[in-house]
């Protein structure tokens, strides 16, 4: 499965976004504020989700600022970091 689709499915499921499907989420739209409408505290669950589901730890604040910009940006961050890690945690097939 495409990482963007998997990421959107996880966002909907884990963040309990109601009345919305993966196709409704614009890959280029901001995750926070306008766009998907997450608020700043949702960064907590988003960080946990990315770590648990994709095995990628978001710790660097500057990188996080870019990664949280959109689904595209977050997917790109995950792909890059998964490639860097010897053991990247659960795969997309799970």
């Amino acid at each position: 499965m495409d990482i963007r689709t998997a990421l959107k499915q996880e966002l909907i499921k884990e963040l309990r976004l109601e009345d919305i499907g993966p196709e409704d989420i614009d890959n280029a739209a901001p995750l926070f504020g306008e766009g998907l409408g997450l608020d700043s505290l949702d960064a907590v669950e988003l960080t946990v989700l990315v770590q648990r589901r994709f095995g990628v730890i978001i710790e660097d604040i500057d990188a996080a600022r870019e990664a949280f910009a959109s689904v595209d940006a977050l997917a790109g961050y995950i792909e890059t970091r998964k490639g860097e890690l010897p053991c990247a945690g659960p795969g997309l097939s799970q």
Partner: protein
Amino acid sequence: MWGKNAVNAPWSSRSLGSRAQHAVFYALIRAAGTTVAYVLLFFVVTWYTLRPSVRRRSRAYLERRFPGAGRAAAWRHAWKLQWSFGQCLVDRAAAGLRGGFIFEEIRGEDPRPLLAEGNGVILLSAHTGCLQAATHALAEISGLPVIVLQHSEPDDVDKQIHEHTGQEPPYRILRTGGGPETVLALLRHLRQGGVLCLMGDRVEGSAEQAVRVSFLGAPVRMPCLAYRLASASGAPVLCVFARRTGPLRGSLHCAECIRPPAGLGRQAQAYRAYAQRFASALERFVLDNPYRFFNFYDLWES
């Protein structure tokens, strides 16, 4: 008899006094010491308490803490609350300008075993005074990196302790309202075993970030950031209330340890029970220390 005509203004961290008035106190503390500053404070507090607009600021709290108080009693309670608050501000300035603040003791649950667990600790406090001095002491006691999440406004004129000393504080200050990057920085800090100090009695940001709990007999909204961070990081939440015990002296009351389980998610209601435990702990503190809860706006949505 509290008066029923005016509505309290929303909460603000801005001081009643001007920058120049603060400067007078700072100069007095430098030149003559805290005792003389307390004498001036007596007249300043009396002047402010005579003003209905100032008494209204604490009305919502004092009405609930002292229900049925008559006119004279209401005035006395308002004066004592302002006096107690003013003493804390004088002590804070004196601690920065002259030093010598003595942190006497930690009461209640000992925070040191929690600090030694290595999962980080969230110190959840309220506006009860001398928290900065307590944080200085805790930072030194713990030996761990400490972040203080602090609200500030552009017009704030009263200085922090470290702004008087000109030295870096023994903790890092992050401002509230910093966006997802700030939240992530807090989570990372806890995962690295650090200590996070923040306030549990003031809501900032969107209504979705708070839950309704009972406090002094009526519903209030309290923030759930601390419990969300705890659920995500595994850090315990220790409810702590600093208290001024005398001139340039304070103590810290560690009331209760709260451990939200992992995986509670983003729905604020999932954290309501934990926010209620904090509210109940604060209520017990306020019942014992009625003039140590510096609430100058209508917390009760009345």
